[in-house]
């Protein structure tokens, strides 16, 4: 059995094989694989006996379920109005020049992906962003440089 087959089977054993188990299974795949590959979707469809197009439809509906490979660290900057008023555009500019990518892209080393997201509920501490599951608030360009540096150092150390 291939790795992805095993992963999906394990998740289906854990959550069940009804249609409502689709979402937790997809979340489980994202947790361990970062994104849901084509093969993984076909396996999910097979396990739950539903159509692969339906799995694709569900996966593309949710912003936090990815269907394309992403970097190891996914940076999501809040794009909603309060963070906008607090200067999220400068934050994005800073991140783009730091990482040498445009919004929506992944760095060449596959470490960082830069995206926007809807409200993170941190309006009182905007601008805000998430790096994977961790929120960062009250951002300034300097603070963003420090945060990115921290992640880069972490990566260097782990090599």
């Amino acid at each position, binding site marked *: 059995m291939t790795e992805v087959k095993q992963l999906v089977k394990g998740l289906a054993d854990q959550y069940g094989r009804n249609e409502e188990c689709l979402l937790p299974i997809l979340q489980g795949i994202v947790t361990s694989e970062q994104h849901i590959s*084509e093969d993984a*979707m*076909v396996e999910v*469809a*097979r396990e739950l006996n*539903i*159509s*692969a*197009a*339906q*799995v*694709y*439809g569900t996966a*593309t*509906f949710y912003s936090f379920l990815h*269907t394309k490979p992403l970097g190891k660290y996914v940076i999501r900057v809040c794009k909603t109005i309060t963070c906008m008023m607090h200067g999220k555009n400068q934050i994005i500019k800073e991140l783009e020049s730091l990482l040498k990518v445009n919004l929506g892209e992944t760095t060449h080393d596959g470490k960082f992906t830069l995206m926007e997201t809807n409200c993170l509920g941190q309006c009182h501490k905007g601008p805000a962003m998430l790096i994977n599951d961790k929120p960062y608030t009250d951002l300034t360009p300097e603070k963003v440089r420090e945060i990115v540096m921290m992640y880069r150092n972490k990566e260097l150390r782990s090599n």
Partner: protein
Amino acid sequence: MAEKINLKIDNIAVNIDEGSTILEAARKINIRIPTLCHHEDLCVAGNCRVCMVEQVDSDRLLPSCAMPVSEGMEILTNSLKVRSARKQVVELLVSEHRADCTRCYKNGKCELQELSSEYIVGENGFIDLVPLKNYSIDNFSPSIIKDDSKCIRCQRCVRTCNQLQNIGALSVAYKGEHMKVSSFYEKPMYEVVCTNCGQCINRCPTGALTEKTYFDEVWSALNSEKKHVVVQTAPAVRIALGEALGMPAGEIVTGKLVSALRRLGFNSVLDTDFTADLTIIEEGNELLQRLKKALVDGDTSVKLPMTTSCSPGWVKFIEHAFPEYLENVSTAKSPQQMFGALAKTFYAKKIGVEPENMVSISVMPCTAKKYEADRPEMRSSGYKDVDYVLTTRELALMIKQAGIDFASLPDDEYDSIMGESSGAAVIFGATGGVMEAALRTAYEVVTGREVPFENLNITPVRGMEDVKEATIKIENVLPEWSFLEGAELKTCVAHGLSNAKKVMEAVKAGTAEYHFIEIMACPGGCLGGGGQPIPTSPAIRKKRSEAIYREDALKPIRKSHENPEVVHIYEEFLKEPLGKKSHELLHTHYTERNRY
């Protein structure tokens, strides 16, 4: 019995069953409320908002297709508020629809176009969103063209594919303004589980889903001096073509169809019904052979139940969904492909035409037949056995283009040979028809007597029930079939792929024991095929079905094995059923396909 509800629509009193919708109540008193996402064959979606009506003393507008009636309700369907809302809804839908109407195949047959003309969508409506839309046009399939730029996201196709057919080739992907009807990973339709059944085409209100047309290729063949153009017409075309040419549903137009084809310039006008009779001989003998091998020889490799193979939508479905059952599918080709293989071999020789100069055309109620004709296996004659497949709709268009007044055409007869057919072949076009035709022949082969049903009408396998079962007891058999003495032949008939799936799941689970299963991909069988005139509804399909059985009853020959041309072709060319020639030309094999 359901409670009755009293309400008023446009000040007219209506009395209707509890649970009915406002739309149904309005239709009962002949008030037309426009609809787009609503379709009689599908569940309620309520997403297009075209059918909005006003409830008196309420601020809200209600979607009439989704709202059940309640006691004392007062509904207005034509108030100022309703009209202005409706117009805006249509304008909004048009703003995201590539309204390139003059160049569209659905021009004149588009429900959105009809509504726009009714509500006079002005020049100054909403801005055109199409240039901002991320759309693609998928015209890679030999059967279906999917053009997202014309899609208004009513999801009739998604409901058709998932509920009516349970295939799941189409789904809704993304959200909000990015939402689109998509296949798995937005792959082209020919790469995914799509069976090409075309039921989505029959229900698409716009030109977002259409069949790939081949009438231009056919016109150029007809206008070529060198080419001998042979045409075959499927059983279900003759009872539906009239609908696309201004006649009511359920008219039998066989004679006019033949006249029209001659007028269009086809050199040989022949009948798929002839090879439908041939299919019965081959498939019936295959079934008896399988039964003999299983019961007498104890051959465990023989697969039962055997299923029919005439419906290319069904064949592709089983290749995707139940590949472990491919050996259960009869190896007999569909009548279209048997015809194609014989046209460029037997018939070409008979009329002294070189097969490379022959163009073989079929007129089918079906879009999956286009894909079937393109299969690499379908070149038994050494050439492409069927060059181009036209739908009933395409033929209707060609007849219009030629300026022929179809209704006033005289009746004409098919050419011979390969033009004669029995009533058993005609009923191939209705669900249960292949089963009935097969039983009429197989029973007689085994017992030497006619099937024990009045006028040969095997009523248990007729009708629009989802899944029909019939058991035929075989008694007093001829000596060579003694192993079947007292046997009960268990048969099953399903139409529509969701019913097919149910049957196959029961077979897989071991809860159903059948010997022979007939499956047609489309609701009602070929008469409800994806290439038939639009619209389709249970009432229209019922009328077509009645016409088919009427045509059967009118035929002097009712059993396939009594078709004199079939008898003749075995004597002169094929020699025997399941013989060497048959295997070369009339049988095929199947391929396992992917899960998505």
